[in-house]
């Protein structure tokens, strides 16, 4: 047994912090998984950059309408109370501070809140999409990520080594090991897996961890 959360469990944990009625943008890929774990009795309204508010689940295979897609170009459906709008209005929602939460993936997050999640360097064809817009404007910009890279290097660092997506934009990180807030340019541990010590967590983190009060156990269901 490895002592870390699965992606589904990280997504589940992030979903617990989304309040009823919140307007939420989930980044393409892993963050989209958060939508599956909305707590019962709460209804978040999902925004997609390409111009839909309040879209719903994917349609059954074969029933896709390819004019009804999300930013990841996956087919979606509409919930009652949905609306369509053009891209300038859509990014007015993003940039204008109207979203409550944006949840994004990350290559690296710095203790300053800097985020790198769009480019792994100068090789290949660069592509940015809406990432740089999304990190600005949402009242809360959270990241979900494994705590370390596939080869074990820290993803939570003092300063990003990869090209930045945004400066000082991330306020909370949900990792495979912990829930960490960024406060006054420091990583403050709010929750961690009971099975891992703070020293072990520090050893897997590229910047100093701060404790304010007690650290709660990070408890998630089997998924």
């Amino acid at each position, binding site marked *: 047994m490895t002592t870390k959360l699965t992606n589904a469990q990280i997504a589940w944990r992030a979903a617990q912090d989304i309040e*009823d*009625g919140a*307007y939420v943008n989930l980044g393409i890929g892993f963050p989209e998984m958060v939508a599956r774990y909305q707590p019962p009795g709460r*209804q978040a*309204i999902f*925004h997609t950059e390409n111009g*839909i*508010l*309040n879209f719903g689940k994917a349609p059954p295979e074969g029933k896709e309408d390819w004019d009804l897609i999300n930013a990841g170009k996956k087919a979606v459906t*509409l919930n*009652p*109370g*949905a*609306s*369509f*709008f053009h891209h*300038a*209005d859509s*990014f*007015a*929602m*993003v*940039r*204008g*501070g*109207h*979203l409550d939460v944006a949840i994004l993936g990350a290559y690296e997050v710095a203790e300053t809140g800097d985020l790198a999640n769009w480019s792994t360097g100068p090789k290949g064809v660069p592509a940015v999409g809406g990432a740089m817009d999304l990190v*600005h*404007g949402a009242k809360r910009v959270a990241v979900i990520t494994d705590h370390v890279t596939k080869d074990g290097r820290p993803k939570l660092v003092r300063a990003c080594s990869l090209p930045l997506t945004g400066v000082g934009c991330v306020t909370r990180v949900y990792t495979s090991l912990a829930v960490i807030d960024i406060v006054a340019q420091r990583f403050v541990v709010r929750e961690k897996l009971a099975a891992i010590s703070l020293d072990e967590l520090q050893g897997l983190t590229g910047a100093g961890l701060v404790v304010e009060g007690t650290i709660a156990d990070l408890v998630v269901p089997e998924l």
Partner: protein
Amino acid sequence: MDKTVAGLPEAVAGIEDGMVVMIGGFGGAGAPIELIHALIDRFRATGSPKNLTVINNNAGNGRIGIAAMIDEGMVAKMVCSFPRSSDPRAFTEKYLAGAIELELVPQGTLAERIRAGGAGIPAFYTPTTYGTDLAKGKPVAEFEGRNYVQERWLKADVALIKAELADPHGNLTYRKAARNFSPLMAMAARTTIVQAAKIVPAGEIEPEHVVTPGIFVDRVVEVRDAAQEEALIRAGVEYA
């Protein structure tokens, strides 16, 4: 998700002294008379809210709506493009007496500044006012051989909006030219308060026909048979 509130007093709750209030409407079309009068009622009962900055294309007409707010002494400053109307007495008196401040903004710049506030654009350049008295003190810049004036965003604490249809999510449609500034103001205010002629269940407004998506709206109150400002003016109605 239910943004509907029971009545007008609940709709205008929390509007405090010194706030910046955007009010939809161009002339009588789109003026949220019932919301304004509910706010006046609260002022009369409690002495608050006062010292308001009101943003609207005009500065009130006759003795109702924004003019009545001005007459009551609730308004410290107007931001508008055209502080005239068929009966601008309320504003004119206070202005000439030095009892109310005026920020005069060209109509298109007013619209664009409000949109910028809603869209997270702190400043933009426009050809409007270049070389005129209204550009005094503003940065200018040349782009592609033409001169432009830098204008700043406008935001508000509260927007008061009149819509035609609303649903519990706050999705809105408007009636004809009553649309005017309202979709922009809904974007630019921290709290957007809407009176709608009819509240319909979520899903009844065709998603393609939504003009203001619910994300820009905070409270919706149904006001059936709402008064039309121009009709009230012509009928000589006073809110006193």
